[in-house]
């Protein structure tokens, strides 16, 4: 099992979700986050006072998948979340030791 953590542009969430669902991914966790990378932020001006907003709003999608479909899922996210400009985001993959479904107590991939 692997956890795929994808930082994406907020307006591309639907596309990313659909592409993962098409691969059979059953659920995901979503967080609204802010961060910065190479994408420049923007400047806001309030009555002449300039504030540089460096932390840009992004979404973090987390899915746990079986090892077999990790590569497919990564490709799906890249395809659906890419615009080709700075700020498209990142994908991180982590090993997952165990997964348990609270309702039934099942362990392993079945619990995901």
């Amino acid at each position: 099992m692997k956890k795929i953590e994808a930082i994406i542009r907020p307006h591309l969430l639907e596309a990313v979700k659909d592409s993962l669902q098409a691969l059979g991914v059953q659920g995901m966790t979503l967080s609204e986050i802010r961060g910065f990378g190479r994408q420049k932020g923007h400047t806001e001006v309030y009555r002449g006072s300039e504030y540089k907003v460096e932390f840009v709003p992004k979404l973090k999608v987390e899915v746990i998948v079986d090892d077999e479909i990790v590569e497919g899922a990564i490709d799906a996210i890249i395809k659906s979340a890419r615009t080709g400009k700075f700020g498209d985001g990142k994908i991180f993959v982590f090993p997952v030791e165990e997964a348990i479904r609270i309702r039934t107590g099942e362990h392993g991939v079945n619990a995901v």
Partner: protein
Amino acid sequence: MNSLHKLGSLLTKLAVLPMGLIAMTISALAQTPTVEERLAAAEAAVKTAQTAGDNAWMLVCSALVLMMTGPGLALFYGGLVRKKNVLATMMQSFIMMAVITVIWAVFGYSLSFAKGSPFIGGFDFLFLKGVGAEPSAYAGTIPAQTFMIFQLMFAIITPALITGAFAERMKFSAMLLFCTLWAVIVYFPLAHMVWGDGGLLNAFLGGKVPALDFAGGTVVHISSGFSALVCALYLGKRVGYPKTPFAPHSLVLSVIGACLLWVGWFGFNAGSAVAAGSLASNAFVTTHFGAASAAIGWLVIEWIRQGKPTVLGGISGAVAGLVGITPAAGFVTPMSALAIGFIAGVVCFFAVTQLKKKLGYDDSLDAFGVHGVGGLTGALLTGVFANSAVNTVFKDTVTGAATPSGLLEGNPAQVLNQLIGAAVAIALGCAASYVILKVIDLTIGVRVTGEDEMQGLDISQHGEEGYNLDADLISAGGFGMSGGAYNESILVAAEALEK
């Protein structure tokens, strides 16, 4: 059927009743109709009718002016601060509605409007003695009580305006004390000087220096604006200013607040005609034109200089225009109002964006930049644009004919009078504000601790938060209730649902 019948006969009886009354009145008139009596009756009826009209208008205006403080100013200022200070900032406006009202009732109205020296009123109206249904010297067609409550609303909003300068860092107790003392030491005397019977600057009731201030440009805006500057300088900058961002947490609230201010200002300015006549119409129109023109003025200069027209710029411009037209509303033509508004919008833009940066003070919400600078601009422009065709102020002592009011009409001295009026307000406001702040600083302290400031005034001063949108999440985590019992009750409820 029977009951319908009864109703029918009752209606017939009721219809006959007024006819009988009319017949009796006619016969009474036929008996003793001297011309003098009929004239007196007609005059009394006219007076009653005029009082009804004027009083209705002035009561509505009083309510409109109160609306400027809460919700108007509370929302305008509340939206401009950071999220952690929204309640404390709104409270600073709201609490004025309570505190100033009480001191106004006890002695404030008397010190402002009872006959006294040229500088402050006397004690004739203490505890509102004699302020009742009979009209006062200030407005011949409305009850003195109406005039009193209308003027109270002005006394409420003026110290509330200053709170924009010390938002986000002043102790609530210190703020309460400051605003109360400021009302007594600055506002009541100033209101007496400009509007009071025998006041130094009163152009209509025997003042030595006839400064024109239709609705409170000097009394309300210059006094509060310059006092705000002293407050900003005395309190010092907010922690982190100007390096860390102080972006407004909700400009949506500010837009609503500014628009409520705009609407409320009709009561403020048009109501200052203290009658529902044509002068009120003129003030209403000039007020509206001034606001519109100033919003455009600010936006145009902002668009040119900064590349984008901001919403905050638009509403700030409108407020600046309303401030600028306030002293002029009942003295200038609608076309002059367009000019005054535009100038006020542009001047205030530079005050807020350039002057503040150059001088380096932290006037959190630009109470000085908008009310001080806008008020001063309006006071001077009133001396320029005032026109005797709109409102006759000065009369030839021999012929009684109207003489010119403002500079453009041929009375350049009026600009000087305006300047003196403004100078009195500035001197009194600044000096008194400094002394009051010093006294408070030496006794209870003016500023919150750095820790309280970082935490936000909502929690540190009031023990509340403005937005508890995640309250459900927090209590589900066992924050509010003892965990075990709470979880159990949820389980019981969930089981019941499944069955």
